[in-house]
């Protein structure tokens, strides 16, 4: 299995999920991540409370689900990781876009692991409430030992050890392959996450002040609906939450068999992801209501309602004040770890699959070689005293510029330049039980690039003009724009390298246009099958 293949004509049959349920669980595991727990509740609260439901659902239906279907269609029709599938769809330039997506996933994998390592540490800390009375100081001074912005090689052992552990487990899972590794991990951790989080939410609902928290989250502020920024916040929440447009869903869909229902499972995945967000909103705000009640203040006087602040400062403070706090803390940080881990697997599968296909590697070889490099970089960058700052900045740029740019470029190239909308719509409808109309093309080709393009440009302007988090400009150029530069240069180099096996030895099924090629024999030429190659 570790032997390299000889020649450029042999191909292995593609790895597959064991079935529809396996795929759905893995796709939900990918979509449900840290953002569902620490981002959605705060975003909903700050953007109209109950009224946010309207732009949120509109964004889900007009952009989230349509782009999800676009990813599915590309990955499933062209049966490859992002570079291979996009190469087959539109040639070398699109392969470059695929590698851009792989590189963004590569960068995200470096720091996402670190956040999971923190969550894992805090899971352990929960049992003796190690953060004491001042979780903010504990996080930055005692746990992360945050230094000045810069690059340091001063390692922090309390981060280093869990980070190495997370990498080892992740690479073992990736090396075991799609069905035996990624799917199996999701089948275990996703149900466990749902149960743990449900217990947490039910407990939170019985805390004093929980009702006040829910009032704050669900009371609608109708004026918010007139604010364009609220609508942008809804589109961006949906967009980032669904793991779309940076290769994940292309890769995951490529492991489905050819005769597989795409759109209906897609609806299940999209609504499951949003269902978890609503559940997280209820749990987080019931808990915040308790915190405000304890301190005798109103919810709107609380700080740290999203992101790292919510999870690693506000929640520890709450846990310390709660009867049975250690159990609540363990449930929260355990959930965070599991939600993050299943998403991490999908992010790194994008990288692994890209390298496997271009360079003829097995899953295990890719996990050891590419994953090994990732692990070393991740440890060097994010387990040092400068890790938190680097992570925050890299995340801003990779997400808000990297992923959004990838989405805009993909929709414009695929729908406008190559005009593949009809073919992809035909593909979705040829295999799926939920049919999509021409409106789908209008949404992914029209609305999506406009809204996402606006998000991209306004973010670039803000980051350029105002900077970020009061950090020095040289640092933002080095870590922020440097991240984008690494992604672009990496994508260009990887595109130029030679394929181990010609990706164009492939015919898409079903043929399009349908009447032109009444196929009588299965187009199996691509998968080599048992015939192997030329002998």
């Amino acid at each position: 299995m570790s032997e390299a293949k000889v020649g450029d004509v042999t191909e292995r049959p593609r790895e597959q999920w064991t079935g529809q349920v396996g795929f759905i669980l893995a796709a939900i595991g990918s979509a449900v991540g840290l953002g569902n727990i620490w981002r959605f509740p705060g975003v909903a609260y700050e953007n109209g409370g109950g009224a946010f439901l309207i732009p949120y659902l509109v964004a889900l239906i007009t952009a989230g689900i349509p782009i999800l279907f676009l990813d599915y269609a590309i990955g499933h029709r062209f049966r490859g990781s992002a570079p291979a599938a996009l190469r087959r769809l539109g040639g070398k330039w699109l392969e470059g876009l695929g590698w851009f997506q792989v590189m963004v996933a590569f960068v995200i994998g470096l720091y996402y692991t670190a956040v999971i390592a923190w969550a894992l540490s805090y899971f352990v800390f929960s049992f003796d409430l190690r953060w004491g009375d001042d979780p903010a100081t504990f996080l930055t001074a005692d746990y992360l030992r945050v230094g000045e912005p810069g690059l340091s090689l001063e390692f922090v052992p309390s981060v280093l050890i869990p980070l190495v552990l997370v990498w080892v487990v992740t690479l073992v899972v990736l090396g075991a392959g799609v069905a035996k590794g990624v799917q199996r991990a999701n089948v275990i951790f996703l149900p466990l996450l749902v149960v743990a989080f449900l217990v947490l939410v039910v407990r939170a609902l019985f805390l004093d002040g929980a009702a006040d928290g829910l009032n704050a989250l669900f009371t609608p502020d109708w004026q918010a609906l007139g604010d364009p920024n609220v609508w942008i916040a809804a589109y961006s929440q949906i967009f980032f939450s669904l793991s779309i447009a940076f290769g994940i869903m292309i890769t995951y869909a490529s492991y489905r068999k050819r005769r597989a229902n795409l759109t209906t499972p897609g609806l299940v995945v999209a609504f499951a992801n949003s269902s978890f967000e609503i559940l997280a909103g209820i749990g987080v705000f019931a808990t915040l209501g308790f915190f405000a009640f304890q301190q005798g203040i109103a919810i709107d006087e609380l700080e740290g309602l999203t992101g790292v602040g919510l999870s690693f400062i506000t929640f520890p403070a709450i846990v310390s004040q709660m009867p049975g706090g250690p159990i609540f803390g363990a449930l929260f940080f355990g959930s965070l770890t599991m939600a993050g881990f299943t998403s991490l697997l999908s992010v790194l599968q994008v990288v692994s699959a890209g390298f496997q296909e271009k360079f003829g590697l097995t899953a295990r070889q890719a996990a050891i070689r590419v994953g090994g490099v990732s692990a070393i970089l991740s440890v060097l960058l994010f387990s040092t005293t400068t890790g938190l700052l680097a992570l925050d900045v890299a995340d801003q740029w990779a997400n808000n510029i990297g992923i959004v740019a990838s989405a805009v470029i993909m929709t414009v190239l695929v729908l406008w330049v190559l005009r593949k909308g009809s073919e992809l719509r035909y593909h979705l409808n040829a295999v799926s039980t939920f049919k999509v109309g021409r409106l789908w093309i209008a949404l992914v080709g029209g609305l999506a690039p406009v809204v996402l393009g606006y998000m991209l440009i306004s973010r670039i302007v803000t980051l350029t003009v105002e900077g970020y988090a009061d950090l020095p400009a040289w640092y933002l150029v080095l870590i922020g724009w440097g991240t984008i530069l690494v992604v672009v240069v990496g994508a260009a180099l990887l595109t130029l390298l030679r394929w181990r096996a010609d990706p164009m030895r492939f015919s898409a099924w079903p043929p399009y246009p349908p009447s032109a090629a009444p196929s009588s024999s299965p187009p199996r030429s691509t998968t080599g099958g048992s015939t192997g190659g030329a002998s």
Partner: protein
Amino acid sequence: MTGIAIVFLMLAIVLVWGGFVASTLFLIRRPDLVSFPPGGEDDHREDEAPVERDT
């Protein structure tokens, strides 16, 4: 909780969780198409497929 907050809590649950339940039921009723275009048969081999070498 206030009345209006309860209404919106229920609305969120009905619309989003309802969407999840409805799409799941739709999938259970129609898990796969009955007929496909010709071709597209996979030889399903679970997980790591054997490496094929030229002889």
